[in-house]
């Protein structure tokens, strides 16, 4: 797969895996309104994944379509960042993951709308609006939970602490990103400002610096991804060749 196809694959995998995670909440969220908003985010992400994985398939040479890429690859060929595959945990963990990721994804998509690669720019132009809502939703909940009760504050601190080690990976640049013409490392200061602003409003401290855990882009994932895929891909694996 060439660099541009790999770029599309990464974008698609990030959205797919996070969408899959969020959809696990459906019917089980803390309140009906939250259930609806998480499902909304999941739906947006699955839509983005469909577009980006479809594009990856086209750029690769039109052999694999979006479904083949989503359902017929194993862990080592998945290129999503580690953050999105983290388990939902309690609601604070889900929000911490969304907060760190959506703020990154919004900046990334905003940059991509000006990409010289028209197909990426088109998908990003639609997706950036969706993701702006995800970022706002997550940031609002960080403030609510940070400011709410002692328990919610304790949980929010623990959740941010859990997810924080996966944030550095978001901004790692390599030749694939260079081919797409997007400087991920340059997104970091703006991301830091957004994160710090929400944390300040929530009266929460930024988690202490630590060594980032990485490897997702190279197919070196956390233990959870295999379980996520075995569930997601169950029908396609059990009944190869069937049309649904």
């Amino acid at each position, binding site marked *: 797969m060439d660099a541009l196809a790999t770029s599309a694959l990464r974008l698609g995998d990030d959205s797919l895996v996070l969408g899959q995670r969020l959809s696990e909440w459906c019917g089980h969220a*803390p309140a009906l309104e939250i259930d609806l908003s998480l*499902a909304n985010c999941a739906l947006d992400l699955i839509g983005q994944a469909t577009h980006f994985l479809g594009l990856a398939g086209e750029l690769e040479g039109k052999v694999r379509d979006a*479904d083949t890429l989503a359902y017929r690859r194993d862990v080592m060929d998945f290129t999503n960042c580690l953050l999105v595959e983290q388990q939902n945990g309690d609601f604070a963990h889900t929000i911490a993951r969304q907060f760190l990721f959506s703020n990154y994804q919004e900046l990334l998509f905003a940059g991509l709308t000006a990409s010289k690669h028209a197909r990426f720019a088109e998908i990003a132009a639609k997706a950036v609006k969706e993701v702006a809502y995800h970022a706002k939703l997550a940031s609002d909940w960080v403030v609510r939970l940070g*400011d709410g009760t002692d328990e919610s504050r304790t949980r929010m601190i623990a959740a941010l602490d859990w997810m924080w080690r996966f944030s550095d990976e978001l901004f790692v640049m390599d030749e694939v990103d260079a081919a797409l013409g997007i400087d991920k490392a340059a997104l970091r200061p703006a991301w830091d400002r957004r994160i710090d602003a929400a944390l300040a409003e929530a009266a929460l401290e930024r988690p202490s610096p630590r060594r980032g855990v990485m490897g997702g882009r190279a197919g070196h994932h956390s233990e959870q991804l295999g379980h996520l895929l075995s569930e997601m891909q169950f029908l396609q694996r059990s009944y190869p060749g069937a049309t649904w």
Partner: protein
Amino acid sequence: MYTTDLTGKKQAETVAEDPKKLAAFEARVANDEFIEPKDWMPEAYRKTLIRQISQHAHSEIVGMLPEGNWITRAPNLRRKAILIAKVQDEGGHGLYLYSAAETLGISRDEMTEALHAGKAKYSTIFNYPTLTWADIGAIGWLVDGAAIMNQVPLQRTSYGPYARAMVRICKEESFHQRQGYEIMMAMMAGTPDQQRMAQDAMNRWWWPALMMFGPPDDRSPNTEQSLRWRIKRETNDELRQKFVDITTPQAEAIGLKVPDPALKWNAKRGSYDFGEVDWEEFYAVVRGEGPVAKERMQARVNAWEDGAWVRDAARAHAEKRASAKVAAE
């Protein structure tokens, strides 16, 4: 998703109503006028509506679970997106039905507590498990199909907020029904394994779907009053017959067999004759003895209890904001 009375006993009319007001109310209803939240209404009407609308809302919320069971395993991206959207719609239906019930003087929390305490009913259909992907097709096609049949007449029900909620809900339900039938169609056009799953789902969901119309008319004590008050517009048996008549040819068109040896076209009636529903099973499921009734209620109670700290936090934060705003003014 459910609109039939499940209490199984005749509601006592305990409150003596002002005969003049009652007569005026009955006349308005008979004239097909809408009753609005601020209008005078008999207590029994209010209670019946609260029971029916909250039961309907609970059914939407519990109904998210059997289909939610397959979201993470949907067979492709398109089906996954459609299923998420569908389950989300059901949550939305629950939300505006709870709001409609709230206009009658009950809070959403009270209704939720009644559900969790086992005091409020919800549709019996959701106490059956979803075992294969074909169940998602069967639910959309049969369960939502039955729901539409129950609900279309309710767009003209006498209580305004309920009727208006139904208009929106019916639009979405017909999309749900189509996507369910489309799943069944694809599977029946597929491999022998897929056809087997589809027929098995048909066998398991057919009778519970017929039960969704509620007990037979001669065992439905509140039907008469509900018809008079335009809370209901057709009887359980009328709706059940309509469902069989419409659904049977749909099944045959894609090669599915209806699991009823007594099913037979009756040219004289212009309708299908069909076998007797197992009413003992129906009443057992109403009593909470459905195969996964405990699992469904446990899932709802867990979501509620595990989420209590989140709702508390949101409330506390809103209060802090409000008092900060007051302090600043």
